[in-house]
């Protein structure tokens, strides 16, 4: 039972880390970023590139990669998505889909089709927690999931930028009339979402692998977390990620691992039917 709980927490931490950026963008900009998975995969490739070029520790490569990913995302939002957002919600959604496909093709050309990982001892080192063997990278995921949730919540509730962000999310026109540069705030939000995703990418790259098309796998899981938790709900994302981790692990133990996706996405549909706004409401909290 304890082993199941610890595994579920580790899985939940990983899902929270991967989904937090998607949730933030969805809650503030009312945009489901379908290129979220490619931001994750691209971040892993970038970290690999930085590590190989600068010959630095993988964690140092992560620190170098994060601001680069943020800058790219800022540019994508200001240069492409913002203009499309003025024409309704569908155009930017379709644009992120196009970005996703284009990014996959770019990854294929730039990095080849094979699955890659960030080479590091962190990914193959274990430890013991309450007598249960666990991977260091799982603990890293759990810590990151919790830490990034707390930091994001603090940013949203205790900083000027956070207040501007929440104001822009509630009513962009009113926020604009009060002097908030909504375009800049949205672009920063998109960049922050990408940086959070890149932090999740570090865990994925260290502990698992990516190939050009594997963004979809992580996007689907992130969408499940965001929908169940409630779009834009920071704590809801964490809670939903842990819940999904629990359901996935318990479901696999009870019904068999082949039912993993049935259970995960069955829960998603059930929540949508019972509570369409997700378990933790619809407003940015």
């Amino acid at each position, binding site marked *: 039972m304890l082993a199941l709980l610890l595994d579920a927490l580790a*899985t939940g931490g990983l899902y929270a880390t991967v989904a937090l950026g998607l949730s933030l963008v969805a809650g503030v900009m009312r945009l489901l970023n379908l290129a979220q998975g490619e931001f994750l995969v691209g971040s892993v490739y970038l970290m690999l590139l930085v590590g190989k070029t600068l010959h630095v520790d993988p964690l140092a490569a992560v620190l170098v990669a994060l601001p680069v990913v943020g800058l790219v995302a800022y540019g994508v939002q200001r240069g492409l998505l913002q203009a499309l957002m003025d024409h309704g919600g569908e155009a930017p959604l379709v644009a992120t889909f196009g970005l996703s496909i284009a990014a996959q093709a770019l990854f*294929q050309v730039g990095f080849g089709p094979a699955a890659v990982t960030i080479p590091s001892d962190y990914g193959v080192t274990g430890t013991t927690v309450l007598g249960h*063997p666990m991977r*260091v990278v799982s603990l890293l995921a759990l810590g990151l999931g919790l830490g990034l949730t707390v930091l994001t919540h603090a940013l949203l509730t205790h900083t000027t930028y956070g207040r501007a962000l929440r104001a822009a999310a509630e009513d962009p026109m009113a926020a604009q009339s009060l002097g908030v540069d909504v375009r800049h705030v949205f672009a920063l939000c998109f960049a922050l979402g990408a940086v959070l995703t890149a932090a999740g990418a570090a865990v994925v790259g260290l502990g698992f692998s990516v190939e*050009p098309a594997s963004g979809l796998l992580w996007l689907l899981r992130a969408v499940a977390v965001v929908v169940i938790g409630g779009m834009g709900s920071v704590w809801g994302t964490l809670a939903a990620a842990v819940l999904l981790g629990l359901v996935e692990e318990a479901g696999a*133990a009870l019904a068999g691992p082949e039912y*993993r996706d049935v259970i995960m996405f069955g829960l998603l549909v059930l929540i949508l039917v019972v509570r369409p706004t997700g378990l933790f409401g619809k407003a940015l909290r």
Partner: protein
Amino acid sequence: MTIRYTRQASAATLLLATAAGAFAQDLVVGTSLPFAGPFAQYGETVRDGYQLAVEQINAKGGVMVGGKTHKLKLVILDNQGDPNQVAAQGRKLVQNEKAVALLGALTPMFNVPISVVADSAKVPLVMSLVPIDAWQNARKGGWHYAWNIYAHEPEATTMSWKAADQITTNKKVALFLNSDDDGEIWGRNWAAQAQAAGYQIAYTAKVPMGTTNWSTHVNGAKAAGAEIVLGQLIPPDAIALWKQMKALGFKPKMATCEKCGSGAFWVDALGPVADGTMTADVWVRGMGGPGAAEVTQALGDKWKGKQLTGAVMAYTAVQVLADAMQRAGSTAPQALNEAIGKTDGNFAVGKVKFSLGHAAPVPSLMLQWQGGQALRIVPKDVAVIAPAAGLN
């Protein structure tokens, strides 16, 4: 004027007729390959094998069919790793590109839908890289225009026991399988053979593709006391599994990974953790018949392990098809199909004879990654290194 025109017309007719004889119409051969997704690296090796074979055949003048020499024209469509696109692309190759024959891709996921197209359109198809039972079981009553040259699972799975017999273990085995056709059939064969081979299946994990968290299964296999790991997994799942076995302190004495541990990408992704992994195969450098050396020379630096085998098998498929075209003296579907079925000769992979329905079984062997090289341990070229170095 009339006479002059007639002479000119006659000369032109003669010239055209001569040209037609010298440069007969190209014969289109088509295929749909995955250049994205988990099998993309194999899509590239298969493409390289096909292209090399076609280039070499054309460089020698082409294929002699019914007294005329034809160049082969290879049309490759990218299915983006989506099996749902294969059937539509297969039909496009037949209907739009006028392909006289098709070539396969790999795994049941891609080769079954292209086989369905071949049978329904009555266009011969030659393929490899799909284990025979997994492919044949997909069609009750058997295939009619599709032909497969590859390993037969009941024989391929015995390689695991032959390798295990060379190592001192407690004979307890953990199976790690994807819940696809390959995982189903390899798992069934391993389970059926284990007792007679003197082994016990102590733990079985059958998981969907895309599994990332293996900790429950790794700890389960560890608790069951398994010292032998037999895997049939796609590369991303297997990379995650190997990392988790290492991190969670599961130290099997022997670890095999079919489909996953088969190319240089395995070593590139896992580094030293990959060392000692075994994988069954049907060919290794130095083996084979006509053309094998050319494939090794042209592609041996680019591809290693089973990926180079993939190129050899693709090259073989083109050789078999070209040979059948020449023997048939025609590209009429039925004549070509019958000629393929009568194939009995030496090609790049070795002897090819369709002795198992529409399948030509190729004898299996076992490789082990040792110091970044996939070396043959069954039959023995080098000694097995145990315990599996990367996981210990």
